[in-house]
């Protein structure tokens, strides 16, 4: 099932005929304190709502997706956890130590929305296409056996990234937390429709030119392991989003006027536009310097926290 948010905070199911069927009325029984609770309520109560949602979607009467004004399916994720470099990137090196950063949920934008580049003096702004997991229930200390039960579904995530800002010598990842830097959508596909999330093809096209092109089969730590490990650190909540990292082979600049289309097999296609009031210009095409640097980093033995820095 594909779940979307559209129009004026309406929740819909995307039917097989590519129309969005409004099911918001089914969620009113949960008396949401605000519209941001609608989709989490659907997620939490999905097992009991499922048959009725399916019936509604089958009955038709929806609005074509192109006319439905899709928004980010979650108005505001409760937290966004992003994996740091979680792909082998064409190497045969040992997998790296798992690490994450947290991204501002205020950065969320949806399908056909606009990424606004800030005036900060970044060396470049990159797209990073990722598959994202939407958490389905409160979870702590999941086991590998139970980990996938806590997955509600999957969607497309664009982890827009400003490089080269912040304190020299450390990577704060704050350049990923500008408003509008978290592309998320166009809808959430429930877990049952993606039997193997580790075999999905991901592509990014900027103005029709292919950039990223990789498979989730290349992930260092699969989703099951991510769910298990992350739930040993922090309580996961329904509506949390876990972004599984990107393959840096194929990153490139996003700049004023760009149209960025990210596609994931079995999920769909997600479009972002880019605006830069300063109209800065970077070289178009793939950032091969970045690609080579990440590959080279990955092939070095891990430099683990010798001399943890102050924070």
């Amino acid at each position, binding site marked *: 099932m594909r779940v979307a948010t559209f129009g004026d905070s309406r929740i819909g199911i995307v039917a097989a005929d590519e129309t969005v069927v409004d099911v918001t009325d089914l969620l009113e029984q949960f*008396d949401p*304190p*605000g519209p941001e*609770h609608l989709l989490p309520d659907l997620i939490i109560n999905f097992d009991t709502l499922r048959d009725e949602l399916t019936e509604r979607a089958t009955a038709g009467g929806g609005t074509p997706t192109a006319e439905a004004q899709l928004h980010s399916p979650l108005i*505001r994720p*409760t*937290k966004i*956890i992003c994996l*740091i470099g979680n792909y082998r990137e064409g190497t045969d090196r040992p997998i*790296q*130590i*798992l*690490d*994450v*950063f*947290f*991204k*501002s*949920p*205020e*950065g969320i934008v949806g399908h056909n929305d606009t990424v606004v580049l*800030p005036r*900060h003096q970044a060396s470049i702004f990159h797209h990073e296409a990722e598959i994202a997991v939407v958490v389905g229930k409160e979870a*702590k200390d999941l086991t590998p056996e139970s980990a996938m039960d806590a997955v509600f579904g999957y969607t497309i995530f664009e982890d827009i990234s400003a490089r080269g800002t*912040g*304190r*020299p010598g*450390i*990577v*704060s*990842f*704050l350049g990923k*937390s*500008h*408003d509008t830097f978290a592309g998320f959508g166009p809808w959430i596909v429930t877990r049952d429709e993606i039997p193997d999330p580790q075999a999905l093809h991901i592509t990014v096209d900027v103005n029709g030119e292919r950039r990223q092109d990789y498979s989730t089969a290349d992930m260092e730590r699969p989703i099951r392991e991510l769910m298990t490990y992350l739930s*040993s*650190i*922090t*309580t996961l*909540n329904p509506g949390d989003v876990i972004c599984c990292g990107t393959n840096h082979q194929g990153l490139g600049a996003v700049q004023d006027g760009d149209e960025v289309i990210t596609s994931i097999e079995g999920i769909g296609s997600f479009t972002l536009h880019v605006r830069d009031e300063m109209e800065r210009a970077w070289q178009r095409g793939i950032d091969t310097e970045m690609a080579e640097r990440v590959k080279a980093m990955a092939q070095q033995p*891990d*430099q*683990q*926290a010798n*001399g*943890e*820095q*102050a*924070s």
Partner: protein
Amino acid sequence: MRLVLTGDDRIAVLKDNGIVDVSSAFADLKYRTAADRMPRVLAALRDRRKQVEELAASSSVEPLGALQAPVPRPPKLLAAFGNYREGTDRERQEQDMFLESPDSVTGPDSTVVLPNHPASIFHHEAELALVIGKRAKDLPADASALEALAGYTCAIDVSGRGIGRMPPSRMGKSFDTFTPLGPAIVTPDEVPDPQNLRVTLSVNGEARQEYTTADMEYSVVEILAFLSGYMTLVPGDVILCGTNHQGLGALQHGDEVRMEIEGVGVLCVNVDDPLRREWPRGVDQEMADRVRNAAG
């Protein structure tokens, strides 16, 4: 005014001799849990301040009981990298900050549970915390930025070192229970100069951290301006202003931790380690020297 959230989910004003329940001033706000209630309360507080103060003056005082963190789950939990001069006269470092898991927050008199993860050490970091009271973007770095604040509180940014592969470890600060917060949100009118507050932290009665916010590299208003230049701040967001690393030490099983910010409050927690690991007691001098040298 000092606003607290009681253990049984009531909103109250903290007084010298107890608390006064002011929940009725916010009775119309819909919520599910204390976690999503407090951001709504803080957003509404500005317009209802007079009503709350009248309630606090006219209602009966009851004894202070158990408290939750005044924001049990902030929409965002933000923290500064090393933001103190630490006794050096160096130029201040480039400003930078990061996000931690908002699910790491825990309340006064609760227990910090050390996880079964191979940290090299778990440190306490006493910090001045800012609580946001209204949506804000692109705040100026002057006193008008303080209008975005609901108030100030105490925080301990418990830090497991050496977790993950890219230090400083964000995961090591994001374990559940690793951000004790409270006891009260102290409104800005009660803190005339946030850059002149004495911060102390002791473990089992032994002094560890002792510093003043006068030594901050980037002041509270500069922090607000910097962060809101990146992202929209929303009611309930909590911002940790960084710590002075001169005086950090290990937290371990059985420890009783007391931190105080003069004029803001006293925050106590205890520590539980199911694995009963042990580290040297006292101040971590190696860490203190390393940060001073890195900063110099």
